[in-house]
């Protein structure tokens, strides 16, 4: 992500430091992670302390300070999914990908995250891959889904 792109997003929010979270969210959405250079640019433009940006990006879950894989897997661990077997689904996804929640594999293929609730409680347990929802996921079914991503 180059400085022009970052500047454009910041300009959209009128260089307003109180929009810091909104600005970072937009950058995160476009670039999918926040490299050091990007954070540095935001700090410079908005003239806020680096510590404040660090505080925010480590406080909120939406931000990532490490690169994300090509495919993002979200396993819903909301209560409804939990009582319908989400922990076992998560185990099997971890086994298949070799990564834990919050991690990205070495080939940058998959990133795995858990999510509090995606609001599809009727379909639990739910797994979301790149925004595509997979409902009523038995652990054994997850392999069939993930095999289609490369």
């Amino acid at each position, binding site marked *: 992500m180059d400085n022009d792109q970052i500047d454009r997003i910041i300009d959209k929010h009128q260089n307003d430091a109180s929009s810091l979270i909104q600005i970072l969210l937009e950058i995160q959405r476009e670039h999918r992670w926040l490299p050091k250079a990007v954070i540095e640019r935001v700090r410079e433009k908005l003239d806020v302390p680096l510590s404040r940006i660090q505080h925010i990006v480590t406080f909120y879950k939406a931000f990532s300070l490490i690169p994300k894989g090509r495919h993002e897997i979200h396993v819903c661990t*909301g209560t*409804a999914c939990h009582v*319908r077997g989400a922990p*076992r689904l998560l185990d099997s996804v971890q086994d298949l990908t070799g990564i834990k929640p919050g991690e990205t594999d070495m080939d940058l293929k998959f990133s795995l995250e858990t999510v509090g*609730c995606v609001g599809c*409680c*009727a379909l639990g347990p739910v797994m979301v891959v790149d925004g595509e929802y997979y409902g009523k996921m*038995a*652990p054994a079914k997850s392999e069939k889904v993930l095999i289609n991503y490369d």
Partner: protein
Amino acid sequence: MPRINSPAELEKFRKDILSKRDPKKPCIAVCTGTGCLALGASKVVAAIKEEIKKQGLESKVKVEADIRETGCPGFCERGPLLVIYPEEICYLQVQPEDAKEIISQTILAGNVVDRLLYTGPKPDEKIVQESEIPFYKNQKRLLIGNNIRMDPKSIEDYLAAGGYRALVKALCENTPEQVLELVKKAELRGRGGAGFPAGKKWEFTRNSQDETKYVVVNADEGDPGAFMDRALLEGNPHSVLEGLLIGAYAIGANEGFIYVRQEYPLAVENATIAIRQAEESGFLGKNILGSGFDFNVHLHQGAGAFVCGEETALLMSLEGKPGEPNQKPPYPAVKGLWGKPTNINNVETWANVPLIINKGAEFFTSIGTEKSKGTKIFSLVGKVNNTGLVEVPMGITLKDIIYEIGGGIPGGKKFKAVQTGGPSGGCIPEEHLDIKVDFDELAKVGAIMGSGGMIVMDEDTCMVDVAKYFLNFLTDESCGKCAPCREGIRQMLKILTNISKGKGKEGDVELLQEMAEITRDASLCALGGSAPNPVLSTIRYFRGEYEAHINEGKCPAFVCKDLISFYIDPEKCTACMICLRKCPADAIIGGKKQIHVIDQEKCTNCGTCYEVCPTRFAAIRRLSGEPVPPPIPEEERTIVGASKK
């Protein structure tokens, strides 16, 4: 959309919209809320559009039908949902392949497609109309019932349904004081959890001495297992805006914010569109409807922090800071956003306001119990047949919600508990199912109304695991600012984890209770203050389960992995190889005509074999608190023709 400058112009515009609409023309409403989208609703819409075009060409008559993509009407279990107006024919679990028949049979020939209808308990009992389906029939859908009647992206749909009439009434026929009095008289209580009277809250903010005041919609619905606010904001964003406008007028605020979590992309999208439309048509901006009242709204996205649902944390986040709560008092009504008096209400609370203005306080207070008026939307989920969103009058019993509307527990299993109020709530056992659901009654049994999550649990749910689950969630979400919450939850989780691993000690339950009380009393905000509720309520009603874990190393629900094992009953195994193939750990030894045996060393207790073993064999046994019988000797494993019988 023209700018509307006065009530008269609005009514004229409304008439124009209605005159262009033929109430007899069929309208196919397809739910495209997040739940139905996940089930493929967008493909259904595309297929129907395609069919209308195709069949129109073939039959050379123009197929007259509108398609409306709507918000969630609630019956997520049977999505994608489709309702055809004006007859109100409700089709469930519609697939793209059904489009052809829906157009040729229902739209063109006027017949009902039987197989897509709701089927009652008796297989020949088909129900055509949406409102007659038991799931809907037993509800009182004052808010959520509007979702299927409008496209959330169309302000015209909202106006056609009588939208912004309450705004006119408030702004042009009442003083702010009169509006405030009306809301107070309606006894509207906040739907976000605590149930604080909304009118009183508004009054505090109104009476605060400051020129600048703010109003905020709290749409940071973080409770796992709750999605009613999402459905409202996604499905009917203008109703929330209208409520906010009326509130702002009563309070004397000229600026408002909608704080919505970024995990709800569709809600963000629809609310953004609604704000833009309202600005263009003059419902937002300067001199609204010629009343002299100015008001603007901004949308702010949450970045993924449960604690931001707490109002002081939410305000910090709005200011672009980490969402760490502050000490109350001063309350936001006195010192809120940027130090100015601020009134924060939840989505559902705001959505109730236009209803109260339109129908009057008497109407609103006629529904509900003595101290809780109106309806409440719950997300009924977990181990229940009809999962989805339900809107019920306050005072309905839990039993009616779970059995009459929810259709009971699936698979003939036994009900164990219902969890209300999310991570701040508690579990209610069967003996209390007859209590009337309102703010105060739920609190009496150790749970809370909360924002409206209602998770049904059956006999296969372990209550220690449930308590552990919530604390696990909360340790992650505790912001860490105050020690009682940060450390208290963590230490309680440690004890619970030990118990679930069979390492519990005598006295653990008492220690949990003691720590729960300290965490509750000493925490800075409501997150820590209510965090012990799941622990305390499970101990209160299911102490026996805790004791089984601690004393016998037994998990009665067969959930805690470290305390269970799986065993193949050699008498029942027919060597069908299904479990052997499905086992993710390759822990099953066997072959054709070889009785299967589980290698306990390799087994990860994932339970896959138990799930896949055909019920007619039911050869897998779950064990807990007892030793696993030794595997049968290898020489006895071969099944010879006769012994199979």
